[in-house]
Structures are given as C-alpha cells and as structure tokens.
C-alpha cells in the first residue's frame, strides 16, 4: 500500500492517475447531468420525468448508455468519414481537458498551472473545431448551416468571455486558478462576483453561448435545422457529442464558480469544512448548472443576427468599460 502511495508522488504517474480520475468523473457527470436535465425539465413542465428504471428512475442514465452502446453507428453515404468520426472526439477532448486545471479543493487539482486561465481559454477555443468538423463531415445542408452558426457563435463569444476574465486577472495579479480562489477569501462579500458584477454576468452569458445552451442553441436549432451539426450522428458518436456538451456545460459552471463565486471557499468563515471544502465547490457548481437548466426550459431561442448584436454591441462594450473602471479603481485604492 505504502509503495503504491509513494508511486503517486512521482509526477508523471500522479498526473496520469489524477487525470484518469477526472476523466472518470467527467464521463459519469455527463450521465448524471442528462438525468438531472430530464428531471428538472420534468418539474418545470409539471410532469414526472423518467421514473421507471430503478428507484425513482435513477438508473435511467445506465439504461440510456446501454441502449446507445447497442445501437448502430450510421454514417451518411457520401460523408467524409474521418472528419465525421473525428468530430465527436475533437469535441469531447477539449471539454475533458479543461478539468485538468480546475481546483476542486486547495490540494485537489490535477495540474496547478501558473497559466491555468490561459490554458482554459486556449482549450475551450478548440471546441469550435469539432463543431465545424461535424458539420463539414456530415455533408448535409442542415449540418453545414449548424456548423457555420456554431463556428460564428463560438468564436464571437470567445471575445467577451476572455475580456470578462481579465478583470479577475487584474484583481488577483495571477493566471493561476488556485491563486484566484485563494485571493477571494472565505466570506461571501469578498468574492469577485460583487465587485465584478457586470463581468460575472457577461461571463455567465458568454459561457452559456460558448456551450450552446438555450437561448443560444442556434447550432442545434431543433425547430429549424433539426439538430444542426449533430443531425447525422447516431449511437455512440452521438452519445459522445452529448457527453461533450454536458462536460463543457459542467466545466463552464466550474470555471464560473472558481473565478467569481469563490471556488471551494465557504460563504462564511465558520462554515469552513476543512478537508471537505470541495463540497462547497460542488454545491456552487450544481447551482450554476441548475440555473443553466432553468433557463433552458423557460425561454425561446435567439436569432443569429440578434445573437451577434448581443455579443458585439452589448457584451464587448460592457466588459471593456468595466475593465477601465477596474483599472481606475485599482489605481485609486
């Protein structure tokens, strides 16, 4: 036993093992999130949601995964097969990689990079590639439209997303996510979402657009382009796309929590749980994800031009102005 634990102190092995653990977490999270999504939608729609498989329907995700594994992978006759099959992987890997730098608790982070925020920004941009690959590889007008929308949307919303991060970076003076959390302190009013409120809202909205959730689910647009870039996928390839979507939704929530809502820090000092502080991180992330789902089932979808208007004419100016305000405030105080 001791030798096994000693092995963990060898850096490459520790990295591998902890990344394996995180990957396990991400894959299971996707399953849990599909269940949560269906239950939340059920309660909003005044119906039960899945309640047949297992106690209170809790084994539904397992049944879904089993069903998806047994399904055939259909690929369109004239599709570009390598691009078509590579797209889900290209979507899933970035979503899983970001988890490497997310601190669950003071010591529970796979890699405490000193440029973690840069890593997050760089990796999330790759997600757009998978969408374009899926749309191009499927060889369908609907897929292509979805992919073009997806690329335009994800690249446009990258700008406010990054700009809204900068306020936090200026306040902390560090690009490490662990430092960001530590700088926020263990009281709710010292967390960054209060002094950086416009940035927090912008980050939230841009994050919503980045993970293509309603009201920004234009690349899917199920009522006009019927699923967009994922229209031709079936079986496990489709499941992988779904897993990527849910994983990136979870990762955006986790990063929002880390940057603005104090990460693992308890809301008040006496609520400090010591080694169990990751519970706070979990609760906050789950709350943010719940608001994502709440929005998902309440509002209609925007149109492409309105989406661009919101991104470039509202979010970008707001973040720029607030950057100046933050800089000015830092000079004065």
């Amino acid at each position, binding site marked *: 036993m001791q030798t096994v634990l000693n092995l963990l102190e060898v850096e490459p092995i520790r990295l591998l093992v902890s990344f394996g653990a995180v990957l396990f977490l991400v894959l299971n999270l996707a399953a849990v999130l599909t269940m949560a999504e269906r239950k939340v939608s059920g309660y*909003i729609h*005044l119906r039960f949601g899945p309640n047949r498989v297992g106690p209170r329907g809790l084994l539904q995700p397992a049944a879904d995964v089993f069903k998806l594994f047994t399904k055939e992978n259909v690929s369109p006759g004239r599709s570009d097969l390598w691009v078509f099959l590579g797209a889900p992987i290209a979507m899933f890997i970035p979503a899983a990689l970001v988890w490497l730098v997310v601190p669950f608790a003071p010591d529970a982070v796979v890699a405490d990079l000193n440029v973690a925020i840069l890593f997050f920004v760089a990796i999330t941009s790759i997600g757009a590639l998978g969408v374009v690959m899926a749309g191009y590889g499927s060889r369908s*007008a609907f897929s292509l439209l979805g992919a073009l929308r997806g690329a335009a949307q994800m690249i446009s919303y990258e700008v406010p997303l990054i700009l809204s991060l900068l306020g936090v970076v200026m306040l902390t003076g560090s690009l490490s996510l662990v430092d960001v959390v530590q700088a926020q302190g263990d009281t709710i009013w010292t967390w960054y979402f209060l002094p950086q409120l416009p940035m927090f809202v912008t980050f939230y909205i841009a994050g919503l657009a980045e993970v293509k959730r309603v*009201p920004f689910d234009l690349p899917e*647009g199920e009522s*006009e382009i019927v699923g967009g870039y994922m229209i031709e996928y079936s079986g496990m390839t489709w499941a992988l796309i779904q897993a990527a979507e849910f994983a990136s939704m979870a990762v955006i929530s986790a990063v929002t929590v880390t940057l603005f809502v104090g990460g693992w820090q308890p809301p008040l000092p006496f609520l400090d749980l010591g080694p169990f502080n990751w519970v706070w991180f979990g609760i906050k992330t789950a709350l943010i994800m719940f608001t994502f789902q709440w929005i998902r089932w309440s*509002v*209609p979808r925007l*149109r492409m*031009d309105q989406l661009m208007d919101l991104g470039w004419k509202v979010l970008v100016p707001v973040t720029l102005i607030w950057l100046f305000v933050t800089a000015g405030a830092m000079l004065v105080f």
Partner: protein
Amino acid sequence: MLGEERRAEHEGALTEPASGRLVSPDIRDEFGLETIDMNMGPQHPAMHGLLRLILELDGETVVRCDPVMGYLHRSKEKISENRMYPAVIPITDRIDYMHNIAMEYGYCLAVEELLDVEIPPRADAIRALMNEFGRIMSHIPSIGFLLLELGAFTPILYAFRERERIQNIFEAVTGARMMFHYIRIGGLKADLPEGMPETMWSYIEGLEKRLQPDFVDLIEGNEIFISRTRGIGKITQEKAVEMGLTGVPLRCTGVEFDVRKHYPYGWYENLDFDVITDEAGDVEASYRVRMGEVRQSIRMIKQILENLPEGEVLGDLGRRLRPNEGDGIARVESARGEYAVHVVSDGSDTPYRVHYRTPCTVNMQLLQEIVPGHYLPDIMPIMGLIDPVSGAWDK
C-alpha cells in the same frame, strides 16, 4: 428550380425592410457567391404536418421559398361523392383535425340548407358550445406550437394539458377524443350527459384563471419572444385582402372580418362577442389575436351555458336522406379562417359533388410572398402565424 424569372419575381415583390437584407444578384455574381438549395420537409419535425418547402438560401437569408403541398392528399372530396349524406360527416372530421367540430358543422349546415330543415334550438346552442370548445382546443396549442418553433419547449406542454382537459370533456359528450362525429344532419348525436354543463362551467372558470400565469406571464413580456416575433412576417391590410386571407392572418392586420359576426349562423346570432383585431400584422399580433379569441370563446361558452334552451337535439328526418336536386352552401369560421362547404345534389342518396373551401390552402400562399427576405429561423414563426393544418390544405 423554377429559374431566374421566378426569383426575380420574388425579389421584386419584397417589402422594403426585408429586401434590404438580400445581397443583390449582381453583387452575388460579381463575387462568385452561391446560394444553397435546401429541402425543408415533408418529414421535418417542426413543420406543421407534411409540407415541403424548397428553399434557396443565401447564408441564412431565404431568397426563394416554394411550398409544395399534396403529401397528405386523401381525396376527401371524391370519397364524399361515394358515400351517403350522413356518412360523409366522419370524412369532414379528418380535414382540419385540430378544430374538426367546425368541419362537421360546416358540412351539416350545407346539407341542412339543401334539405331545408329546422334545427331544434337546443341542438343549435350545443353546436355553438362545442364549436367554441373546439376553437380553444385549437388556439391554445397553436400558441404553444408558435413558442415551440421559437425554441421554448415548456408552453406546448402547458397547452397540451389544456387540450387534454377539453378532450376529456369532448370524450364525455361525444364518445371520441378527436374524430367526434357528433354533429349530425338535423341536430346532434346525443344530448349533453347529466352534470356536463356544471363540469364545463368549472373547467372554463379554471381556464380563465390559468390563462394569465401559464401563458400570458410566461410568453408576453419575454424579451426574446418580442425580438423574435415583432415585425416578422409583416402583412399589409391590402395584401391580406388581395390574397383572400381569412381568420387570424387577416384579423391580425386590422381587417374586422369574422363569419360568426358578419354572416351569423346557428346560435351565434344570440351571442354577444367582439371580433379581435390587431394593427401590426406580424407574428406577435397573431399571438395576441389568438389569445383574445380564446378569451372571447370563454365568454361565449359562459353565455351559452347560462341560458341553454331545453328540448330535443335531433329532428326526425327519416332513415334515408334523398334531397331534391339543387345545392347548399354554408360558411363557418373555423379556428384557421373561413371554411365553406358546397354540396350539390342530383336527387340520389349520395352527393353529386362536395367542395370544401379550407382556409389553410388559401392562407398558405402567404409563405411564398412573405418568407423571402427573412432569415431561415423566421420561417417557423411565420408558419405559426398562418398555423396551417396539413389535413386541411391537402384535403
């Protein structure tokens, strides 16, 4: 492909703001820009039934939109010629399956005109009563569908809860949940069951209370709903009249025309109600008109229930109907617009010819006219404005 000529015709027909979004064909040629042809439907999950749209897209902008009908053609007019007069009623049920009580109503009125018979007043009142329930049952899901097309999933489930409850009422009254076959030539299949007026009254009271929180509050103030529907699918009054639109697409441009008001039939003479109109003529206006009509229907149902006449519901017409030679015409206001039936008799026991003028067929012409120049996602809200039913446009 219908060729350059057709496209030019469409581009010429565009209104100012819409055409501003289009790249002109010259520029398109100069820079070598290409348009995509896209087939939407007939198997499209968000399409109202089986409609195929041939679209020419310039990016997200629609350059040309050709609706192709006929995927649900079931030759109802021909079938009607081969059945005895009473046996045609179930066929009419399947025309507009969202508001099918009006389809029966129109046919029975036309045959009654042919036969020149008197309808017992109680039958008349119950016909109007069920017709208005049918209208609510059609309008509320229409609003839900509009929101579903905009990407909001919740209102449709609330709408279908209401439809479900009205279907329960229909099941108790007529014995069927969708294809009622309730209105008969000369009256009705059966009287209301015992206690039914009270059940209806309590349902209507409940619906009136639920309309505000479940629909109006959820939909009307929503910023995204407004930005997606205001100014979309704009129809001018002249255009609407010129194209022969009826129903909500006509009334939402501000033309006050409702068959129930202006050419009253059956019990509608005795009812006090308003014709809801709106000036804007866009998708948002159509939502408001539908919502207003639901409220008017509630008002009418209350009036009918308050003084429901007593008596028989089916006159004695004999076993076999053999009308004299001649023809009968009836027009009724269905949830989608003016529905007219023309029945021609040659003296035998089957009709010589039956023609159904369904509003959907006429209103669908709008698609060709107003869709070009809009963005692709706007097609679905415009379909929500027209709210066609594929059984009705194909017959």
